[in-house]
């Protein structure tokens, strides 16, 4: 081997090492960013099993804990972290004094009291790990979780049925039939995405109030049976990728358009229909504003999000309860996401790219 090719190899090896270091650094940096963005989830999970007392203390540990105590001779003493001879020991405070206090070593109580010079008020308490799982059971009862859950599921299921049926029909109409005004009508449909809700809300609310729908589920459910821009768009894009030859074969066999939709298009469009189902289910699950204004006086009919916001107003003095309640309302969408993350991601990609 000539010296020249050897040198070339060494240069390439060095470049390879540099590249590997860069990959490692960039990957670590990005995962740190991701961890920072998701860290609130961790704080929620930890807070949800803390005691009210722990949260109210400014420098309490990150993990759910209780102040450590030690029972001795029928009395309960608090345990503190005491610096003695440059070493920190966990000792139970048995006799408080202003300038010196007496402690007992819980691991070796027979040795008798240890005297320590200094003000015990400056000592840090010792903590032991104590997740308070009972928070969940308490919140379950306080917010009438079963009722809220039932309402949420019922609203989500009915509105999803309405959305899937209506959007499939409308998307099929736009994808497969030629009719005058199709282009402008489709543009109009898409334009509704950009319309501020407030500009249609007030007369709608007024009419619902007049006909007695306010305080019922009807304003939340009826509109879902008339299609919406996002889902029609998503389904239409998918329907257009299904070869027309297939519907033509069906129509030669004498199938009408509705039959073609049910027996040819729908079976092929399952990925898109699943996406619409999931999106709408999660959307309804997460919706707050619509149920808030239409069900404000009816706690029995409200879904989880409205119940959670009201719960926050009532129990803001106990953040642990709020976080436990929050955990209970996000569990279902998060689990759905974990199982169907691919469908979610593809659905979002489909609505974003075409534009």
């Amino acid at each position: 081997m000539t010296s020249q090719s050897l040198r070339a190899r060494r240069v390439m090896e060095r470049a390879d090492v540099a590249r590997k270091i860069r990959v490692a650094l960039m990957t670590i940096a990005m995962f740190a960013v991701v961890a920072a963005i998701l860290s609130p989830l961790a704080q929620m999970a930890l807070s949800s099993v803390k005691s009210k007392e722990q949260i109210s203390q400014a420098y309490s540990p990150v993990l759910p804990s209780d102040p450590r105590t030690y029972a001795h001779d029928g009395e309960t003493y608090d345990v503190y972290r005491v610096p003695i001879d440059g070493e920190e020991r966990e000792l139970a405070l048995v006799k408080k004094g202003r300038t010196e206090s007496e402690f007992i070593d819980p691991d070796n109580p027979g040795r008798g009291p240890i005297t320590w010079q200094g003000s015990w008020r400056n000592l840090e308490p010792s903590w032991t790990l104590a997740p308070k799982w009972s928070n969940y059971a308490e919140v379950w009862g306080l917010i009438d979780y079963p009722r809220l859950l039932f309402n949420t599921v019922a609203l989500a299921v009915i509105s999803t049925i309405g959305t899937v049926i209506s959007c499939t029909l409308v998307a099929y109409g736009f994808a497969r039939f030629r009719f005058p005004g199709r282009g402008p009508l489709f543009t109009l449909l898409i334009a509704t995405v950009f319309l501020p809700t407030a500009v249609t809300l007030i007369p709608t609310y007024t009419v619902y109030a007049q006909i007695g729908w306010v305080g019922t589920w009807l304003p939340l459910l009826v509109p879902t049976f008339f299609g919406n821009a996002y889902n029609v768009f998503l389904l239409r894009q998918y329907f257009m990728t299904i070869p027309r030859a297939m519907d033509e074969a069906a129509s030669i066999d004498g199938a009408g358009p509705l039959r073609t939709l049910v027996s040819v298009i729908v079976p092929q469009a399952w990925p898109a229909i699943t996406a619409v189902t999931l999106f709408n289910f999660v959307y309804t699950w997460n919706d707050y504003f619509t149920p808030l204004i239409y069900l404000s006086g009816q706690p029995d009919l409200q879904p989880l999000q409205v119940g959670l916001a009201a719960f926050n107003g009532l129990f803001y003095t106990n953040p642990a309860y709020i976080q436990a309640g929050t955990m209970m309302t996000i569990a279902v969408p998060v689990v759905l996401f974990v199982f169907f993350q691919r469908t979610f991601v593809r659905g979002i990609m489909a609505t974003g790219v075409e534009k």
Partner: protein
Amino acid sequence: MTAIRTRRRIPMTLMARREARHGYLFILPWIIGFLAFTAIPMAATFVFTFLNISLNQQEPIAFVGLDNYRRLLGDEQAWSSLGVTFRFALLWLPVVIVVPFLLALAVNSKSIRGSSLMRVLLFMPYVVPFVASALIWQNMLVDNGWVNRALGWIGISPPSWLNDPTWVIPGLVMMGFWGLGAGIIINLAGLRGIPTELYDAARLDGAGWWRQLRHVTIPMMSPVLFYTMILAVVEVMQYFLVPLVLFNGTGDPAGATRFFNLYLYQTFFTYQEMSYGSTLAWLLFVITLVVTLLLFRVSRHWVHYAGER
């Protein structure tokens, strides 16, 4: 010339007419829904602005001319709340447009491992209900929350995010990070759609990372950036639900979260003043429309559509 003119006059064949009838029949649910829930209410909102409709007052409904608009002109609370919305928009819009783009760029980079896991993790908060995410972030931003502990470690004396009128807006922007998931995915889809030949050609011309970004990636991504920008503008103008949940509609601290849409919501929902609420709604609509049209006009200069020369 004449051929083009007469094309529309050709009567539709029987087949075509039947096809059209079927088409209309299938989109009928949407047409009815559009009329009932969008077109007619929108027109009614406009009509309401000239009336005195209020759900809790017994006065007969009457035509009041421009009274509502006159009230709007002198309504200090409306304009100051519009100011709050604009101030928030100024801080939020750069974040909501640029951050998803940068994160997508990083996830898409060849120097990153585990990008599909990263994509899923970054998108995940998208499915967290925003009431829940507001409460989770509230816990994060309280005085001894994790954000302030982290700032303490690096030696910054942290602000009181939720009690300080100056810092509450940046606090709300931080909460908004959980709403960026969809934007990241859309940007990622856009980046994957850029033909690799463009980068090969740029490299042949000696372009480094920065010039490839400047002359290939950004122009090719401009339609996606424009799309996220328009959606973000429409959304930011309506922003108020997170502070509504956190501060129970009080506008705390010191009116710093009294957003325009909060004022609108309280006017029509709390005080049931439908006509004045409609006037506020029209103002919001007109502002959104004007800003959107301006952005469309300016977009001709920077948005590059493939296939258009």
